[in-house]
């Protein structure tokens, strides 16, 4: 299974108690649950198929479990949270709807532009320009949208085109979980920096474990003597509190940074777990295998490509399975963009 997100949309009365009850139920059923809004929850289904069955089956189970406590919901499943959310909002109560890969843009394109998170004023302006559907908005040139309407509109435009990052956001921890280190002698080599970061990540791991949490997103800010702060952000899949795994994630972030500018003279670091997953009493690792392998494979491919250049990491796409010579069976394409 590739990427799949189930958005659960709470119907009828949305009280604090019912919101909390749905969140608690979903967290008990699934490994990665984010809150999209009041009464709206996004569940990342990557890695769940082996244990829980198809996304539709997971969706049906969510509906059934919540029905037992008389909480009506509808579930939308798509590759990205936004399309899944729009689908869930339109699905009849008690139903599970799914968009197959490749159907999202078509589904969204026919809907009114009002489904996008746009300011009322901008919506009116688009109406005056004759742009009434998501598809018409998506067809506008990306640069022109940013120039004319600004950053928020550009973000909505990315949603319309299915070009947003599309990750389910994890929950922020109840207290800030931060580790800091500073060094008298600046560090200018990646291997030395990684060694030094390990101590900070040991502290972070201890803090996470104290609260029964695993980090799902890390933000590291490297203070530099000779340059601006270098900010790194990483989605950690599977979420973990293990310092070695967190260090590996930061190492990929360092290796992948755009342009791979010199490290500079690093004098300190501040690492924060900005999104977390509750692990106490749950075995989230059981669900993480697929996503973890995918994440690791992409990271390795990016690393090799950054070192060896284009054409080094390829994957075959079968174009003619009947061909009698292998080089005509497949076309080779870049494994990562």
């Amino acid at each position, binding site marked *: 299974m590739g990427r799949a997100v189930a958005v659960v949309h709470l119907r009828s009365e949305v009280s604090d108690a019912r919101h909390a009850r749905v969140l608690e139920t979903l967290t008990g059923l699934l490994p990665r649950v984010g809150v999209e809004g009041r009464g709206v929850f996004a569940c990342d289904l990557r890695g769940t198929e082996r244990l829980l069955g198809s996304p539709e089956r997971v969706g049906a189970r969510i509906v059934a479990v919540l029905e037992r406590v008389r909480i009506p919901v509808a579930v939308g499943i798509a590759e990205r949270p936004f399309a899944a959310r729009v689908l869930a909002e339109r699905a009849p109560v008690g139903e599970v709807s799914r968009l197959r890969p490749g159907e999202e843009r078509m589904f969204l394109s026919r809907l009114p532009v009002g489904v996008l998170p746009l300011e009322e004023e901008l919506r009116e302006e688009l109406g005056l320009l004759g742009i009434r559907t998501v598809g018409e908005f998506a067809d506008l040139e990306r640069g022109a949208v940013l120039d004319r309407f600004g950053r928020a509109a550009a973000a909505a435009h990315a949603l319309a085109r299915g070009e947003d990052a599309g990750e389910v956001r994890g929950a922020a921890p109840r207290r800030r979980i931060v580790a800091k280190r500073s060094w008298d002698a600046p560090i200018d080599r990646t291997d030395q920096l990684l060694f030094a970061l390990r101590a900070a990540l040991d502290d972070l791991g201890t803090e996470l474990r104290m609260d029964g949490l695993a980090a799902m997103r890390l933000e590291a800010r490297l203070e530099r003597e000779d340059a601006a702060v270098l900010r790194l952000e990483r989605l950690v899949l599977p979420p973990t509190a293990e310092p070695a795994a967190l260090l590996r994630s930061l190492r990929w972030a360092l290796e992948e940074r755009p342009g791979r500018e010199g490290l500079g003279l690093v004098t300190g670091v501040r690492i924060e777990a900005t999104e977390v997953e509750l692990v106490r009493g749950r075995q989230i690792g059981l669900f993480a295998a697929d996503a973890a392998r995918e994440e690791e494979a992409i990271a390795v491919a990016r690393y090799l490509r950054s070192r060896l250049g284009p054409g080094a990491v390829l994957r075959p796409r079968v174009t003619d399975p009947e061909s009698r*010579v292998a080089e005509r069976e497949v076309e*080779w394409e870049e494994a990562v963009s």
Partner: protein
Amino acid sequence: MRLFADPHPVRLEWEEGELRSMRVADRRWTVVEVVRRWRVEIEWWKKDGGIARDHLTLRTADGTLCEIFGDRHTGDWYLQRLLD
């Protein structure tokens, strides 16, 4: 199955008409079985003679199953894919 984007040149070692081993770079595999053999000839009407190949699926002493082919125009052999 692992298909190589660029087939690796191999050197075959025969003994009394039997395939005994193959060398890829500096590594040598003992061949214990020729599992399958077939010939491909396509586009023979073209000026360059088209594609004329002898294909063999081999099992080596360490249990590796692989597919090699020999270009009948040049006599060169290549490792095309490894089968799991």
